């Protein structure tokens, strides 16, 4: 096909697509005028029923908790897949040298890692109260560990994240989520039904199983991302040694 023909085809399809898109956007409800019944109901009942002031977290870990269980295991299995593929091809060498030699960079990096770690804990702990939660906070926590490596201290990074501990925490997070659901069943309600204790809305000790599931997710996500990064890092080192 000639360049001219392709351009003509693009012009026609782009015009068609943008017309359809504009049509769809024009049909959307106005900002702040969502019509769905489900959303309105949850907004009304989440705080009084579950004592969670962040309705998004209440939905994720309670009203559709079983979907989140699935998502949790998606992450779990994909990290297992990466570990299986990459661990097979190398033996433990542990000979990665610190790339950063500047003391100032190290100091700033480690200081930022501490700040980032605190922010991550905050985002996790306040999941049922303010925006955030186990997933977002977990990635921030993993980012804090990564920063320790980026600041140049590979030995400190590996010391902070020993492989057996990572494997255990990841499994405990994913498994803990499923086990909390079974506890609901043992107490005589549906799987993952929130059995409390509910506490006072707006405080850290509130929202019942939402808080527990939030914490389990945080453990799983933190360990999963650190594990993922470590596997890539070790594989990278192997590539370096082979090319050297």
């Amino acid at each position, binding site marked *: 096909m000639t360049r001219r023909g392709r351009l003509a085809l693009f012009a026609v399809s782009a015009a068609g697509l943008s017309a359809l898109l504009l049509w769809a956007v024009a049909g959307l409800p106005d*900002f702040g005028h969502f019509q769905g019944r489900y959303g309105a109901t949850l907004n009304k009942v989440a705080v009084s029923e579950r004592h969670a002031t*962040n309705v*998004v*977290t209440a939905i994720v870990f309670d009203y559709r908790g079983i979907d989140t269980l699935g998502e949790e295991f998606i992450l779990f299995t994909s990290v297992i897949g990466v570990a299986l593929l990459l661990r097979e091809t190398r033996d433990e060498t542990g000979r990665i040298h610190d790339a950063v030699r500047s003391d100032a960079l190290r100091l700033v990096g480690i200081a930022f890692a501490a700040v980032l770690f605190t922010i991550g804990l905050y*985002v996790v702990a306040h999941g049922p109260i303010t*925006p*955030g*939660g186990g*997933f*977002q906070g977990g*990635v*921030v926590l*993993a*980012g804090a560990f*990564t920063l320790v490596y980026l600041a140049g201290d590979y030995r400190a990074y590996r010391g902070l994240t020993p492989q057996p501990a990572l494997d255990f925490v990841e499994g405990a997070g994913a498994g803990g989520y499923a086990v909390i659901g079974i506890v609901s069943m043992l107490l005589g309600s549906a799987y993952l039904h929130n059995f409390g204790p509910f506490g006072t809305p707006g405080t850290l000790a509130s929202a019942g199983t939402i808080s527990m599931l939030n914490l389990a997710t945080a453990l799983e996500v933190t360990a999963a*991302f650190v594990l*993922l*990064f470590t596997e*890539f*890092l070790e*594989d*990278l*080192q192997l*590539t*370096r040694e082979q*090319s050297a």
Partner: protein
Amino acid sequence: MIPLQAAAMALVAFFALAVVLTREIVRLAMISSAYALTLVVLFVIFQAPDVALSELVVGAVAFPLVIVVAIVMQRGGE
């Protein structure tokens, strides 16, 4: 739609186009991170702070990190 929302959407559109038009892979890692940041701003303006936080940690932190590691591996670990 208020002007602020329109501006945020225009910014996202601009950076999305920049991501598509970038050919050099290191620049792509940086520009896609910046694109994620504009999306974060969009979500905050549209009052979806939870989604904004998720986008922030995945789009601006986790994704570029994986891309950078992939680039280094592809270059033979230089």
